[in-house]
C-alpha cells in the first residue's frame, strides 16, 4: 500500500521536478520571453499588491460581507427595519473596481452603449462587458461629474434617413428605423418607463441642382432597391407638395416617405444605457489614458517581423478621484467618438511601424446648430430639407421653431477648442441660403444655438467599423462624420456579430473596415451634408 502511494506521488511529482530542474533555471538565464510589459504613455501602471497582504485583505472583506449578510438576515427576521447600511455603497457592481473583463469599450456614447447592449443581450451571463466613459450621466443614486456634457450623441440633431449612396449606410439606416420603431420591445427595463425616442416620421427632402440630379436619381433607385421608400419630385411637383419652397436652381428632389425623420438622441442613449446596466454591463467613470502592452513573440502576423508582435493587454483608466487603475480585457473596442484618434494613438495606431503606421483619421469638427423662430414658416408636414449647398432645416415642436445649420466649407472650419457658438456664422452662411430657399424665412429670430463635434473621418467621411489588422483584440467603431446616431443600433449589432459569431450575419460591413485605409480604397459617399 505504501509503495503504491509512493509510486503515485512520485508519478505526479517527478514530471514537475524534472521540469523545474531542467527548465526553470534555463528559463531564467536564456529564454527570450523574459521581458517586462511596457506602457505606452508616460503613466506608470499601478503597482501590484503584495500577495500576503492581499490574502488577508480579501479574507477580511469576505468575513465582513458574510457578517453583514448574517446581520441583515437577523434584523429582517426580527422585523427591525434596517435604516443604515454599514457597508458604504460602492459605485461598482461587485463592490470592487473591475480589474478584469472580457470586453472593454472605450466610450459610452450611443455607439459604445449600443455595442454594450447588443453584446450583453446575446449573452447576459457569459461575458463581462465594461464601458469606460469619461463624462457620464447621473447614475441612479450617485451623482457624478458632468452629464455627457460634450458627447456628440446628446448634441446631435438626431436625424434618420436612408438617403445615402452607399449600400451599407442605407441598410444600417433601415435597421435603425426598424429598431427605433420597436424600441419598446428591445430596450424596456422592468421597473422603468418604456423608452420613448419621440420619432417624428416626416422624412427627409434632398434637393439637387442640375449637376447633382443624375446622382440623386441613381441614389434614389439604389435605395428603393434595398427597401427604402422614396419619391422623386420634379420642381413642379415640389411646389405642389410643399408650397413654401422656392424651386430656383432645383432640378430634382427626393422625399423619403417611410422610415425617415428625426428623434431624440438623448432618449436613445438613456434607453441603451439603462438597458445595458440592467443586463449587467459595468460603466466605469474614468478616462482611458493609456494601454499596457504585452510582448507575444509567438504571434505571426502578416507584414510584421516574427517575434516583434505586441498585443494590447490592459487599459489604464484614470478614475474621477484621480486614481490610476488598469483593466485587463480580452477585447477592446474604441468607440470614443471625436476623441478616437487620441485613444488610438495610445494603442500605437499611427506611431508604430508597418500596419501601425497609419493613424486613425478621425478628428473632431465643430458644427453649429441654430434654433430659429419664424411666424409663418413651413407647416406641420415639413420634412428635414437639405439644400444643394448643404444647409438644412427642420421643424422643432409646434410653436413655429425650426432647427437649422450648415457644414462650413473646409477653409471656414471653426476651431475645436471649445463648444462656443459663432452667431455670425448664421448671419453669413446659413440665413441667406435658407431665406432664398424658403421665402418665409426672410424674417426669423435666432432663439438659441449650440454646437457639437462631428467625429469626422478625414479620409472618406464614412464610419470605420471592424478590427484593426495588426491587433487581434482591438476593434474600432467610430468616424461616422455626422450620421452616426442613426447607425448606432446597426453598428452595435455588427460588432456583436463580429465578436460572437465570427462574421457578419445581417449587414455586411466588410468594406467599412480599417483595411481600406491601408489599401487606399476610400468609400466616398455622394450625399453627405
Amino acid at each position, binding site marked *: 500500500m505504501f509503495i503504491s502511494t509512493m509510486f503515485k506521488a512520485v508519478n505526479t511529482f517527478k514530471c514537475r521536478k524534472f521540469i523545474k530542474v531542467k527548465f526553470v533555471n534555463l528559463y531564467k538565464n536564456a529564454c527570450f*520571453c523574459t521581458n517586462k510589459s511596457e506602457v505606452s504613455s508616460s503613466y506608470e501602471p499601478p503597482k501590484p499588491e*503584495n500577495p500576503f497582504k492581499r490574502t488577508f485583505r480579501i479574507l477580511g472583506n469576505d468575513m465582513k460581507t458574510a457578517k453583514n449578510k448574517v446581520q441583515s438576515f437577523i434584523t429582517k427576521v426580527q422585523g427591525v427595519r434596517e435604516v443604515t447600511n454599514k457597508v458604504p455603497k460602492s459605485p461598482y457592481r461587485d463592490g470592487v473596481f473591475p480589474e478584469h473583463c472580457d470586453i472593454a469599450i472605450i466610450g459610452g456614447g450611443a455607439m459604445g452603449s449600443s455595442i454594450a447592449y447588443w453584446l450583453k443581450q446575446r449573452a447576459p451571463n*457569459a461575458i463581462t462587458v465594461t464601458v469606460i466613459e469619461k463624462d457620464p450621466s447621473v447614475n441612479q443614486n450617485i451623482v457624478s461629474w458632468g452629464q455627457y456634457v460634450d458627447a456628440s450623441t446628446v448634441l446631435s440633431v438626431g436625424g434618420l434617413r436612408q438617403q445615402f449612396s452607399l449600400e451599407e449606410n442605407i441598410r444600417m439606416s433601415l435597421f435603425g428605423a426598424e429598431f427605433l420603431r420597436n424600441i419598446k420591445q428591445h430596450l424596456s427595463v422592468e421597473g422603468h418607463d418604456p423608452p420613448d425616442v419621440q420619432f417624428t416620421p416626416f422624412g427627409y427632402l434632398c434637393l439637387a441642382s442640375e449637376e447633382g440630379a443624375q446622382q440623386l436619381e441613381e441614389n434614389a433607385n439604389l435605395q428603393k432597391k434595398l427597401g427604402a421608400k422614396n419619391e422623386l419630385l420634379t420642381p413642379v411637383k415640389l411646389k405642389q407638395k410643399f408650397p413654401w419652397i422656392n424651386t430656383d436652381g432645383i432640378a430634382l428632389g427626393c422625399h423619403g416617405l417611410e422610415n425617415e425623420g428625426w428623434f431624440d438622441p438623448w432618449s436613445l442613449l438613456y434607453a441603451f444605457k439603462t438597458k445595458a446596466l440592467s443586463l449587467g454591463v459595468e460603466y466605469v467613470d474614468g478616462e482611458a489614458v493609456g494601454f499596457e502592452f504585452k510582448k*507575444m513573440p509567438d504571434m505571426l502576423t502578416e507584414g510584421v517581423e516574427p517575434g516583434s508582435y505586441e498585443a494590447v493587454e490592459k487599459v489604464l483608466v484614470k478614475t474621477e478621484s484621480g486614481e490610476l487603475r488598469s483593466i485587463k*480585457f480580452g477585447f477592446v473596442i474604441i468607440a470614443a467618438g471625436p476623441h478616437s484618434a487620441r485613444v488610438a494613438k495610445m494603442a500605437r495606431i499611427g506611431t508604430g511601424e508597418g500596419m501601425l503606421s497609419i493613424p486613425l483619421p478621425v478628428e473632431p469638427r465643430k458644427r453649429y446648430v441654430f434654433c430659429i423662430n419664424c411666424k409663418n414658416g413651413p407647416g406641420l408636414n415639413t420634412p428635414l430639407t437639405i439644400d444643394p449647398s448643404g444647409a438644412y432645416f427642420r421643424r422643432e415642436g409646434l410653436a413655429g421653431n425650426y432647427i437649422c445649420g450648415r457644414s462650413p466649407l473646409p477653409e471656414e472650419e471653426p476651431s475645436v477648442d471649445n463648444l462656443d457658438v459663432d452667431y455670425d456664422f448664421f448671419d453669413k452662411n446659413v440665413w441667406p441660403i435658407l431665406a432664398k430657399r424658403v421665402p418665409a424665412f426672410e424674417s426669423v429670430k435666432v432663439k438659441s444655438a449650440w454646437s457639437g463635434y462631428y467625429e469626422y473621418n478625414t479620409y472618406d467621411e464614412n464610419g470605420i467599423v471592424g478590427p484593426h*489588422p495588426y491587433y*487581434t483584440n482591438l476593434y474600432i467603431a467610430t468616424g461616422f462624420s455626422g450620421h452616426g446616431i442613426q447607425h448606432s443600433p446597426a453598428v452595435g449589432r455588427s460588432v456583436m456579430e463580429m465578436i460572437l459569431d465570427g462574421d457578419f450575419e445581417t449587414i455586411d460591413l466588410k468594406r467599412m473596415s480599417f483595411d481600406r485605409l491601408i489599401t487606399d480604397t476610400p468609400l466616398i459617399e455622394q450625399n453627405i451634408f
Partner: protein
Amino acid sequence: MLLARESVFRSSYFSEFFLFMVLFLMIILFCSFGSVDLFSFYLFFEGRLVPTLFLILGWGYQPERLQAGIYLILYTLFASLPLLVGVIGVYNSSGLLCFFFLSDPCLSRVFFYFCMVFAFLVRIPLFLVHLWLPKAHVEAPISGSMILAGVLLKLGGYGLIRVMVFLVNFSFNLNFFWISISLLGGFLVRLVCLRQTDLKSLVAYSSVAHIGIVVCGIMTVNYWGFCGSYVLMIAHGLCSSGLFCLVNIVYERTGSRSLLVNRGLMCLIPRMSIWWFLLRSCNMAAPPSLNLLGEVVLFRSLVSWSWLTILMLGGLSFFGAAYTLYIYSYSQHGSFYSGIYSCSIFYVREFLLVFLHWFPLNLLILFRDVVSFWL
C-alpha cells in the same frame, strides 16, 4: 505548473514568494501521501490549506468576486474538524494509529463512521458539497488550479481508500447512500457542464463529474472498485491538470475565459488543436487512455454491486461525451474575425507542459498491471 506561471516571472509579481508557496505545498503534499500514521496524515491534510489559500487569494484573478476564500475555508476546514474527532475515536478504541495495523474493524459507532468519511467526501468532492470547487478554480491562478485539480482532490480519494479498510462493517450498510448521491450527482453535474460558459468553471465541473464515479468505486468496497478508482484518480489528475493548462494557454492569448469569445481557436493557435483533441478525448474516456481503463474497471465493479446502476452509468457516459465534444467544437471550430492576419505558434515550454500531461495518459494503459494492481 511552474512553467505555466511564466507570466508571474514576467511581471515580477513577487515570484519568490510564489515559488516558496508552491514548494511548501508540494512538500506538505508529499508528506501527506507518504505518512504512515493516521494522525500525521491528518496534520498534513489540514496543513495544505494554508499555502493553497495564499496561492489562490494572493495571485488569483479577482477573488473578491465569488468569495472563494470563505468557501474554501468554511467548507474544507469545518468538514474536516469531525475527522479529528474520528481519529481520536480510533485511537481510543484501538490504541494505535499506524495504518498497517489498522486493518480490522475497530470503531463501534456510526457517528465515527460519518466523521471519518465526511471530511474526505467534501474534499473529493461529493456532489452536494462540491460548491467550493468551481469557485476556487475560477479564481485561482493557473498553477493553483493545476495543483488543486491534480493532487489535492486525490488527497480526498486517498484518504477514503485508507479509511475504508477499517470502516468495513458500517460501509456495507450505509455506502449505498453515497453511491446513489454520486451517481445522480454526476449525471446532474454533466448537464450543468453543458450550460457553462466560463472555460475554467467548465473544466472544474467536469472534475466533479469524474470524481463522482471514483467515489462510487471506492464505496463499493470491491477490490476492482479500489483498483478502478485508483487508476481513474491518477488519470483524472493528469487530464484535468492538462485541461487547465490548455485553458490557461488560451487565456494568455485572448485575455478572456468566456467560451463565447474564445472561438475559432483552430485558426488562432493551430498547433494547440491537437492537444485539445487528445486531452478532451482522454477526458471522455476514449481509448487508448488511462481514463478508459479506470472507467471500465469501475463500471464492472459498480454493476456487480447492483445492476440498477447501469441506467445512471449510461446517462453519465453519454453526457460526458456530449459536453466534451461541445467544448471542443465550440472553442476550436468556427472563425475568429479579428485574427485573420495573425496566428500564434506555440511556445516550446507550453508544448512540453501539455505533452508531459498527455504522455502518461495514453501510454500507461499499456502497463496496466503496474498501474492498477499495485494495491
